[in-house]
């Protein structure tokens, strides 16, 4: 069994979430702006890992914030705004993908060209495309687990809480997810090494 203490979900030294939530609940616009600045990029990044589509990720992030603002009128979250937003974003992504009946990341624009060297850039984009495709093929829970722990840097305890599962179950999802990614990406990187088994 693994244990651990939650890592902070935010890196900026501003007021704690609970304080901002209370102030926002009382109509302080500054608190809204602070919460938005604190979580906008993180949330959009998380949604992007889940959808594989930048525009859709922005929509999901925006809708998540809209729901947070609306919640202040009736049933606002308390304590950790980031956890609340991540949970809402994931539910929105699941709903969208279910409605469209497709895997995450199937379509989506290429990333902007912002590095020197066309060959390097092409290789980099090719790797990104493969990673995105490999992530898109993962079962949703494995994808969410890897997004939370690898990309969002949540602790095992925070990530497990996000997914409403035990830490042991999270660890199992992570191990299977990474194994599946390794299988999918082996053609990309020979040095990824052999897998110890297969599973989903």
């Amino acid at each position: 069994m693994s244990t651990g203490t939650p890592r902070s979900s935010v890196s900026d030294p501003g007021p704690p979430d609970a304080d901002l939530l209370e102030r926002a609940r009382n109509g302080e616009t500054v608190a809204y702006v602070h919460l938005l600045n604190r979580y906008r990029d993180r949330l959009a990044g998380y949604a992007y890992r889940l959808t594989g589509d930048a525009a859709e990720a922005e929509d999901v992030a925006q809708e998540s914030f809209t729901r947070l603002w609306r919640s202040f009128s009736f049933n606002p979250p308390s304590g950790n705004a980031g956890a609340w937003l991540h949970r809402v974003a994931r539910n929105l992504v699941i709903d969208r993908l279910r409605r469209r009946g497709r895997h995450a990341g199937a379509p989506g624009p290429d990333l902007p060209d912002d590095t020197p060297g066309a060959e390097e850039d092409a290789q980099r984009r090719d790797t990104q495309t493969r990673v995105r495709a490999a992530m898109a093929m993962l079962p949703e829970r494995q994808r969410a687990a890897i997004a939370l722990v690898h990309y969002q840097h949540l602790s095992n305890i925070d990530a497990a809480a996000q997914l409403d599962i035990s830490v042991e179950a999270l660890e199992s999802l992570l191990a299977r997810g990474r194994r599946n990614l390794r299988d999918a990406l082996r053609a990309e990187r020979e040095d990824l090494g052999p897998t110890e088994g297969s599973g989903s």
Partner: protein
Amino acid sequence: MTERTGMTWTRVEEILPAYGADPARWPDAERAAAEAVLATDPARARTLLERERSLDQTLDSWAAPAVSEKARASMATAATPGFISRVRGAFNAGIGWRGPLWQPAGAFACALLLGMVAGGAVPATAIDIAGFTDLDPAAEAYGETAELEDLLSDFDILDAEGDPS
């Protein structure tokens, strides 16, 4: 090999495939112990870590794009308090109320209801009181007159119709 902490190579070989090679992603409570176990056999540790590090690097190459200016502007525009939050803020500033807004609203509603119930009962009482007050002199006068008439009748001073006989 089992360490004093209870950490084993078996556990290390569970942690790495799940969390990758970067100790920052490992469970906080197990990080130091896992690193201590890895330090006991550098060759074995290198093999395990390199395998996971390679996958980590590939995953890290997939950068998330920055949020567009249009989306940033749109989100910023929407980040404003709603009506109820503004009312709550006004309560907060005005009377120092920090609890749920439904509590003062409920208290007001209860007071209003009580007033309406009381209002249904009070008018009848008020009429009685007013009637008593208005009629009191007449009633008293009538009463006194009646008693006087009865007394005078007893002494045949008045006839049956009340006229002096």
